[in-house]
């Protein structure tokens, strides 16, 4: 399967009018016939678009997993849907990083638990004291 948008030089979001113009401009008559068959009918275009999105996804996945030159990825598909490798982060490594970060954060919190408890107790005590003093002063003033 080919990426007709790319071959016609239009964006996949182009509206019908732009597409029609691009198809009419196309110098290759075979490609023009194919494009007319696909884009001439709304239902054709829709199902073609779905297949296109799946292939785009798979192309990106392959690029990120280093499978762009796989044995099953050949011909028109490989020509039109292979993506250049972006700053491919391994998702698994990222997950491991994130987990270890969370663990260290948790441990740090646990290690300073006594200190934190003291601060919390002191804070609540002060708060209660202020509140009591405030109400008492109100009562005496009245």
């Amino acid at each position, binding site marked *: *399967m080919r990426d007709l948008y790319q071959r016609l030089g239009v964006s996949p979001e182009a509206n019908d009018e732009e597409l029609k113009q691009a198809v009419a401009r196309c110098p290759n008559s075979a490609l023009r016939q194919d494009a007319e*068959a696909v884009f001439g009918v709304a239902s054709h275009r829709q199902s073609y678009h779905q297949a296109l999105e*799946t292939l785009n996804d*798979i192309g990106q*996945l*392959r690029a990120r997993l280093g499978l762009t030159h796989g044995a*099953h990825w050949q011909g028109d598909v490989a020509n039109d849907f292979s993506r250049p490798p972006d700053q491919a982060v391994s998702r698994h490594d990222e997950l491991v990083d994130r987990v270890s970060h969370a663990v260290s954060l948790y441990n740090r919190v646990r290690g300073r638990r006594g200190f934190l408890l003291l601060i919390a107790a002191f804070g609540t005590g002060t708060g209660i004291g202020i509140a009591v003093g405030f109400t008492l002063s109100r009562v005496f003033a009245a």
Partner: protein
Amino acid sequence: MSIARFSPFELLLLKSRSQVDTAKLLLLAWVLCHRQQVSEGQRRRRLAQVSVHFRHGHELAPVMQIAQQQDLQAIQLAAEVLRRECSREHGLGVMHQAIAVATDTGELSLANHYILRFLADLFDVPPATLATLFQELTGRALTAPEDPSRDAYWRIHDAEHYAKYEAEQARQAEAARQQARQEQQRAEQARQRQQEADQAREQAEREKARQREQQHERERSRRHRQSHQEKKHNHEQPYRATPPDRTTRALAVLGLMPGASKLEVRKAYRRMAQMHHPDRFYTESEHRIALASARFQRIKSAYDYLMHTYQ
């Protein structure tokens, strides 16, 4: 330092009792989501059926949901986990399950063609092995995926549309033919009328001639000769009225009308030169080659003259 929260699939993986099985589940759910003509419940039941021996220990619904959202990052993570943990035999087992899940309603959908091939590449299954596996499981050969970017695909899959289109075309052609027929009839009628008029005129002339004949037999022969001469005269007059200058003649050699542009001249010259080049006739008799080279010479000198005068 990443501040991003854990995605649903990451949480699922962390909670899972077996990460490999969770990853497998997601990929199988991805395949299931691209199967056509299957209801939501059927998909869920099929996934449950497949995952009987899995040891993931969590609900299936969130996996199904992630697969339906086409969450690329989750699928990438699952693929990475599987590639890291699976041995070759294990990979073949997953391929086995994926093919079974993808084909138990019959046809392999277009998206699944590509997904299965992606999984095969992921587990390092060569095309020959995949083909035999597919053949064994489904009893059919693994064909190349169809190509919906081609006209031929839609001729097969949407024959109705083409039938309608052709009927429309036939109707238009029929209308055009009828119109042409009508016009032809009209033209014929006009011709008949003209002929009748001509006949009438001729008759009138004949009448006059006969009268004249009766009057002067000798004069008639002389006049007849005169009229002949006049006719000839009339025939030659248009040519003589506009004597063709050299430019017009040169254009005529190239098959063009007077007033052709330089570009047209060049194009016509190319075409004619290709057609009449003596090299084209080298397999044929010398006489023909000589004729062709004379023609070519004529074309070339006409072109040279035109290029010279047009500047």
